[in-house]
């Protein structure tokens, strides 16, 4: 059984708990082991790298060293995976930071570990045929808009995965579980989350543009792989119809939640109840409209 | 170890690539240690192992073949 060193990161411990549980459940089902990195710490993104980039690299480096005994790291959160990937590139050339790590009893050996995101790990599993036969309830007829946001496939030199402007890996995964991905325009546009406290108006305009584009493309749901995108796109919807011209509410889910549903994994484990806009059964909705 | 040791390294460089590359290093004014003495050979195919042995027997500190 192949195994990854699992790096949940802070979001998956709290606001994105359902990403964590659904990802673990799906990988358990397809037989790919996830061993949580013991005593993992902050990935070095968010505030740290704005204050001191070297400290951020060192913090990320600590996690890399801790994981090196287990195997390659899978870090579901887009920020975590990019932060750790960037650290690998930097540590290759940054002797002083490596020395600092050694002083702390952590020897980093370049090339000893690599990092991938949850989408990357799942994409590989799909390509290797690991989900074949695991899809018991294919999501036939469900139209999904795969949303990548800013960091999942960018910057390309660090992400080193998929096309930075027109990615298609999540679509491939959605097809594998029977859903129908829509071709739409805003899959790599900014969701605006980073500016919610600075310029709320701008953020909400960006959220509206992304969601309306998905709605115009006739999507039933938006799937994402970033805790911050999911949170931002989902939780602001209830207030946006009136003031921001959101056409209607649309569920925003982690791609792993939909995969889990297709594999008949228990809804509790998938955390479907945690989603702010719930995925309404299409037929129910149609019935409502008729009624 | 002596500080700043001076070596004599005999280089056998292919006329078409490395020798031209060494010329280019000159054109770009890239400095490198003066220990290397480059001999121009028409192709590394010309590189007879005897040349390397001869250089080492005559006291060269190293032999560099490039092509």
């Amino acid at each position, binding site marked *: 059984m192949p195994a990854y060193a699992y790096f949940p990161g802070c979001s998956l411990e709290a606001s994105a708990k359902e990403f964590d549980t659904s990802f673990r459940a799906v990988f358990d089902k397809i037989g790919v082991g996830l061993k949580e990195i013991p005593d993992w710490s902050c990935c070095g993104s968010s505030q740290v790298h704005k204050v001191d980039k070297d400290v951020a690299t060192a913090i990320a480096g600590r996690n890399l060293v801790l994981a090196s005994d287990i195997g390659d790291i899978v870090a579901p959160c887009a920020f975590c995976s990019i932060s750790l990937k960037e650290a690998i590139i930097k540590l290759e050339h940054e002797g002083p930071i490596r020395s600092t790590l050694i002083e702390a009893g952590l020897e980093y050996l370049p090339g000893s570990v690599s990092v991938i995101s949850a989408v990357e790990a799942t994409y590989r599993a799909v390509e290797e045929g690991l989900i074949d036969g695991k899809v018991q309830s294919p999501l036939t007829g469900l139209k999904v808009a795969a949303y990548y946001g800013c960091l999942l496939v960018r910057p390309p030199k660090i992400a080193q995965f998929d*096309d930075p402007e027109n990615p298609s890996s999540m679509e491939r995964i959605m097809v594998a579980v029977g859903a129908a991905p829509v071709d739409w325009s805003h899959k790599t546009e900014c969701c605006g989350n980073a500016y919610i406290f600075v310029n709320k108006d701008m953020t909400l305009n960006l959220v509206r543009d992304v969601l309306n584009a998905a709605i115009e493309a006739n999507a039933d749901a938006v799937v994402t792989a970033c805790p911050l995108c999911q949170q931002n796109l989902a939780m602001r919807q209830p207030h946006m119809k009136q003031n921001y011209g959101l056409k209607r509410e649309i569920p925003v889910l982690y791609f792993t939640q939909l995969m889990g549903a297709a594999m008949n994994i228990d809804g509790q484990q998938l955390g479907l109840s945690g989603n702010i806009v719930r995925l309404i059964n299409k037929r129910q909705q149609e019935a409502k409209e008729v009624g | 170890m002596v500080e700043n040791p001076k070596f004599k390294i005999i280089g056998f460089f292919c006329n078409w690539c490395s020798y031209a590359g060494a010329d280019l290093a000159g054109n770009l004014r890239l400095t490198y240690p003066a220990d290397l003495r480059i001999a121009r050979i028409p*192709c590394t195919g010309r590189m007879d192992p005897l040349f390397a042995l001869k250089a080492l027997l005559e006291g060269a500190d190293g032999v560099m073949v490039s092509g």
Partner: protein
Amino acid sequence: MARVGVFICHCGANIAGKVDVEAVSEAAINIPGVVYSSHQKYSCSEAGQKVIIDAIKENRLDRVVIGSCSPKMHENTFRKTVQQAGLNSYMLEIANLREHVSWVTADKDEATKKAMDLVKAAVGKVSFAKPLTPGQVPVEKRALVIGGGIAGIQAALDIADMGYEVVMVEREPSIGGRMAQLDKTFPTLDCSACILSPRMVDVAQHPNIRLLTYSEVENVNGYVGNFNVIIRKKARFVDERICTGCLECMGKCPLKKKIPNEFENGRAPRGAIYVPFAQAVPKVPVIDKEYCRYLLSPDPDKVEVKEGEKKPKRKCGVCAKVCTQGAVDFNQQDELISEKFGAIVLATGFNLFDHSKYGEYGAGKIPDVITALDFERIVNSSGPTEGKIVRPSNGEKPKRVVFIQCVGSRDEAKGVPYCSRICCMYTAKQAILVREKLPDAEIYVFYMDIRAAGKGYEEFVLRAQREYGANYVRGRVSRIYESNGHMVLKAADTLVGMPVEMDDVDLVVLATGSIAREDSVELANTIGITTDNHGFISEVHPKLRPVEVPREGVFACGACLSPRDIPDAVATAGAVAAKVGVLFSNDILMSDPMVAEIDPLKCAACGACVSVCPYSAITMEEFRGKKFAKVNEAMCQGCGTCSAACRPGAAQLKGQTDEQILRSIEAVLQW
């Protein structure tokens, strides 16, 4: 005993600034064999050369060492110098004191010591030099021109007009190349076909030119003046000698209008039997065997037929039935033609960047995002829309047209780092053509910088802006997506420092950059030359020898060297013709005497040299029962691999013998 003279050049301050030339010159006199030593300001100058000549004569020198710049720079100059003094020109050795010493060494003392060592090595080597005489080879005064675009056409016509025979090989069914696909040309707005077609006809009618279309070069052997080339003439299935060009067959092909026509960049269809465009030269159709129903159906003679069953019949064959001349010949096979040439001209042209790498511009999937070459066909009156500018998605006239420059060019992340040189100009031209055909359309051009260096070019771009009302916006477009039957475009205006968002865009034209032909590296390997890291053919010297390539007798012109416009392609074609003319003005050529020779008395006939020779220049011979290896001097390229492989030391490379190299090693380390 050898009498060696040493001459150290100051090269102004280039060498003397770092190397103590006087000390080197004084020390040189103590090297065994040296009887004279001096130093000059510039050895390559007329005065410097005179000093060398006089010193050789006065001191009865028989060998010369010159400590100067790289032998790649002035070896030939100094060979002539020593020859003028009466010595064999190969009794010379250059010590590279500039590129390998003064320009690369920081410390003066170390530089001086290294210079002394290199002079010793040169003296050691020259001590064993022997006089060499160049061989003579006749020149085959026929030229092969590969590629029938405007560059190839110009080169072929110029060479043929000098009175030499030319064979032109073109891969496509017709000559004409990229220029034939263009509508108008900048900055004069001449109709491209109108100025090109007469040249194409000239090629076809020129008594000295033989045209081989639908053909490719398979193999090149030999050397300057004597190339042996194998050309594959692909089966056309139409006999060129009989076909009258009535094109009756094309109208009857059941696949007509079913196959995308490459000439129209896939924007208009063709049949399985077709000429790519109306002015094609030769006006003889080809049958595309990938599509033709007759050729794809099984051959009745090769199908096993059971008793009682009928033999299957070939499908279709309509073209053969309608041809009154009987020119259609389904049994035609590829033909391999072997020809001898004295010179080869490469004019294989360029390709265009594939914009599917630009996901932000729809990755090639948005129908109304087209390339500039698509636009050329669309705006051309013999193109797919008969010259009407329409949106491919719905055939309607566009109201808002946006041009985006530098798609693929100057983009290190997704494309190539270089500037494609022609895009600023053709974009301005296309903006003008939009205005001429659609007086009410809004025209926007997004650019990074305008590069309009050429006669009348800057004025042309200004005219596009001022007279034709094209709105130039400086900035990159970051995103295009479809919305409500139009497109939305997001960009930055870097002069104002503001983001731009444009709705209701109807047509986007991408100025895709020029790239090398995808098989240029393969072709270069076939011919034995090199390309740069982008696949363009490398010239010997970008400034002083811009149309010669590192294999003697091979020349290149046009956009296979680097992106360029028509005037530059034509100018380089003329330059190539002049170079070929210079070559062909010789009846015989001197061959490099630094080739291998094998002493039959020492040869043990082991055959090691035969197996290692990369040029198949060594064969086994027999004389009175004794076997020995023999070098074909015309084929030997002087690599010396045989010499390294030869155990008895029978194979020696002239000018680079074992003795010479071993002595120079000894000289550096022991003297």
